[in-house]
C-alpha cells in the first residue's frame, strides 16, 4: 500500500545521475517505476550546436514544477515524483531534465511521467538559447507542445 506521494524537485546547474534518482523511487508498495531523461542533442534547428543555455525564473520554477507534480499525484496513485531540471550552459550529450514516477502499477507510473513532461514543457518558466557555429538564437516554443496537453 502506498502512502502519500513524496515529491522531490531540484533545479540547478549541477548534473544529476539518473541511476541514483531511479533508486530513490524504490519503496514499499511500489511495483512500477517510470522515468524520462532529456539530453542535449548535437544538432540545433539548423547548424551544429555548440551549447545550449537554459535561463529560468528561479522563484517561479520550483513552485510551478511542484504544482505540476501535485496535479499528477491528485490524478494517479503515486509513491513518489522526482523532477530534476538543469539550468546554465550545457553541452551536447549533457543531461537537461529527469522526471521519475513510482506507483503500484505501470500505467499510473507511465502516464504520470508523460503528463508531468507535457506540462513542464508548457508551464515551467525555462527558456533555451542555442549557440551554434552560425551564432546564437532563442528557441521558439512548439505548437505541438501545446497540442500535447489536449490528451490529458
Amino acid at each position, binding site marked *: 500500500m502506498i502512502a502519500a506521494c513524496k515529491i522531490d524537485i531540484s533545479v540547478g546547474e549541477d548534473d544529476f545521475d539518473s541511476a541514483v534518482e531511479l533508486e530513490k523511487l524504490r519503496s514499499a508498495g511500489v511495483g512500477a517505476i517510470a522515468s524520462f531523461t*532529456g539530453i542535449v542533442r548535437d544538432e540545433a534547428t539548423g547548424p551544429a550546436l555548440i551549447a545550449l543555455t*537554459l*535561463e*529560468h*525564473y528561479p*522563484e*517561479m520554477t520550483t*513552485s*510551478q514544477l511542484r504544482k505540476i507534480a501535485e496535479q499528477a499525484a491528485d490524478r494517479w496513485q503515486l509513491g513518489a515524483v522526482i523532477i530534476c*531540471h538543469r539550468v546554465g550552459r550545457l553541452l551536447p550529450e549533457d543531461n*537537461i*531534465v529527469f522526471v521519475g514516477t513510482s506507483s503500484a502499477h505501470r500505467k499510473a507510473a507511465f502516464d504520470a511521467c508523460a503528463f508531468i*513532461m507535457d506540462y*513542464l*514543457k*508548457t*508551464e*515551467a*518558466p*525555462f*527558456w*533555451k*538559447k542555442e549557440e551554434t557555429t552560425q551564432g546564437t538564437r*532563442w*528557441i*521558439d*516554443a512548439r505548437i505541438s507542445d501545446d497540442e500535447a496537453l489536449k490528451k490529458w
Partner: protein
Amino acid sequence: MRIRYFAWMREHTGCSEEQLALPAAVLTVSDLIDHLSSVSDGHALALKNRKTVRVAVNLTFAAPDTPLCDTDEVAFFPPVTGG
C-alpha cells in the same frame, strides 16, 4: 511594483528588472503592457506581439484582464521552452 523580464524580452528591454510606481490609470495586466510599451523602443519591441507575451503576477500565470496592485511582482516572458 517590481517588473521582471526574461529571455529575449530581457535582451530587448535591456534590463532584467525594474521598479515602477503603478500609474493610477493602470488597472490590469493589459494596461501595464500598454504603459510599458511607451517606456522605450526596446520595451515596445519586447511587448509588441501580445500573442507571444506570457505574464506572471506574483509567480502565477496571469491573463490580460488580471487586476494589479502596487505591491505585485509582474514578470514578462516568451512562451517557455524547457525540458
